[in-house]
């Protein structure tokens, strides 16, 4: 039982990372109708930027905050310069564009930072020791990741539901034309969406780096597929779905791999195919996802 709880908590922590990335994907999809395949590589790039800041003497949390700002600005810049030109066009064009970004950012990360072994300072962002809660070992890092995720999600919720800006953001995603007619600068709202998504990705990247040292340019590749699976599972248009989906996938994957020792299906290496299977099943059975609205197609 203790092992079960431990794995659940660990799964929730890794699931939080998937949820953050998935949330970014959903925000972009809701506002611009584009699936950002480059979401993971954007996260990797910003994580390397953070490492550079720390390497130059900036304190970890200072670098964390600064990186979020840089990521935010970068996301806005990306949308305003490149992405806006493919919005509203054929799906394939946007797909190729984000794939191009995926390749470009991956290449840039490799080029600028080369393949040296680097890590963040130990015990950053959270100590790697664990608490003993009634026999269950809960890693402080996992708890920290969960806590920050909760705070971020609440902050975003507040932004979207309680502020005028949030209302404008939601309106722009729901009905861009009507939004423009009431005076909302829809273009900048979309850019803001990309900025928020980039910042969420940055957090996901920093947590991934903390959980899997040393820093590796390919670290977000599997996270991307889990995040896509989470977004699809929860419903591509549903922020709540992205979070629930991410946590669910984190927990379920962890449990499956743990209990694989009993069935010997060598499932540890099959995580990505399992995520793919999840995507496939959801898309076939209920494409709108758990929390999505089933769209009625008018013929």
């Amino acid at each position, binding site marked *: 039982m203790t092992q079960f709880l431990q794995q659940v908590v660990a799964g929730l922590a890794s699931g939080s990372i998937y949820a953050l990335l998935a949330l970014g994907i959903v925000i972009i999809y809701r506002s611009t109708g584009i*699936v950002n*395949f480059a979401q993971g590589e954007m996260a990797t790039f910003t994580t390397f930027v953070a490492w550079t800041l720390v390497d130059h003497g900036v304190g970890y949390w200072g670098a964390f905050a600064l990186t979020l700002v840089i990521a935010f600005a970068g996301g806005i810049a990306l949308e305003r310069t*490149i992405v806006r*030109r*493919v919005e509203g*066009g*054929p*799906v*394939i*064009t946007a*797909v*190729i*564009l984000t*794939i*191009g*970004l*995926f*390749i*470009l*950012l*991956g*290449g*840039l*990360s*490799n*080029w*600028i930072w*080369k*393949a040296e072994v680097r890590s963040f300072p130990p015990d950053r962002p959270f100590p790697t020791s664990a608490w003993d809660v009634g026999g269950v070992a809960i890693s402080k890092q996992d708890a920290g990741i969960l806590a920050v995720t909760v705070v971020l999600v609440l902050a975003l919720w507040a932004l979207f539901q309680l502020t005028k800006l949030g209302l404008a953001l939601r309106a722009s995603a729901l009905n861009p034309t009507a939004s423009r007619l009431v005076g909302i600068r829809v273009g900048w709202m979309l850019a803001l969406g990309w900025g928020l998504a980039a910042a969420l990705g940055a957090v996901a990247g920093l947590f991934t780096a903390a959980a899997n040292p040393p820093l590796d340019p390919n670290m977000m*590749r599997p996270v991307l*597929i889990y995040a*896509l*699976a989470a977004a*699809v599972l929860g419903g591509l248009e549903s922020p709540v779905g992205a979070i629930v989906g991410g946590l669910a996938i984190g927990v379920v994957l962890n449990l499956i791999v743990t209990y694989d020792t009993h069935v010997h*299906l*060598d499932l540890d*290496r*099959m*995580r*990505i*195919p399992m*995520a*793919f*299977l999840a*995507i*496939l099943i959801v*898309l*076939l059975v209920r*494409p709108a996802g758990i929390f999505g609205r089933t769209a009625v197609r008018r*013929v």
Partner: protein
Amino acid sequence: MSRLATVRAAVTAVALVAGIVLVYFLPHADRIGYIKGSQLGVYFIAILGLNIVTGYTGQISLGHGAFMAIGGYTTAILVSEHGVRDLWTIPIAALVAGLAGFVVGVPALRLSGLYLALATFGLALAMPAILSWDKLDAVTKSGQEIQLFNSPHLLGKGFEDVHFLGRTLSFNHAVYYLTWGIALLLLAVAWLILRGAPGRAFRAVRDSELAATSSGVRVATYKTLAFAISAAYAGIAGSLFVIALAFADPQSFPATLSLTLIVGAAVAGLGSLWGVLAGAAFVQFLPDFAVHISKAQGVPDTVYGAALILIVLLLPTGVAGGLRRALSPLTTRLYTRSQSQ
């Protein structure tokens, strides 16, 4: 025959001859050589197939590398385990991959545009892990390299000279001509399919499934057919790839291969056969070219990604679309002239 049809036939004939000549002289071009030339041919075939499913029926597949892997592994297993002559494995690989394409194509019917792209993207990412999975040992050898080098069933055992029609060719030469011979053949086949009734049905499906259905086109049939055909093409490409390499392993078919293929198809210009060579050349030579700019790690991808983004922004309809636009003053005159007859 109307003037337009005459012109079309003439252009096609010229293109065919030009293609054969090009194939003969290509390896002598600077820095290309027979090995890269074969690789170009492999991409050409795979992108041709992908164009059929994504360009002509509008189903976005980000997972065609998986079909290449299936074709490639079919060849590898048959040659190494069952002693089948490599050339005979090519049609078998086509069949197996085509069947896999059909199997994928059926559920794909329920997924539109972006959802299909997501599902196939997942397939592409999952393939390397599946190929390394212990439980599929019989088929994939658990991700260990399947060595074909020195196999008597392989063309020239992978390194010796090959005797063909009284002439002696080195292994690389032989592979090159084999690849491009098949490529030109497949191009002709694609051209025939696409200009006939199936081609019209494909285009109808892409432009409006609703209209196509009400016009009596069995949309489901044609969509799965397109998937199967394109997968067969990719399977042949994979098979030729493995023959050229003389081995097969999961790293030869990484997730990025599927991305490379869709990039090639997009650069080529979806829905037209004219740009496929340009698309294949783009994905084959741009990374090589980038390496010449700087040998630093990551530069090729940076240049490649940047070029891709530029093309998407400046030439969204690909090379074929650009050609069409550039030539439109010529072709409009042809069209109007024939109408007045």
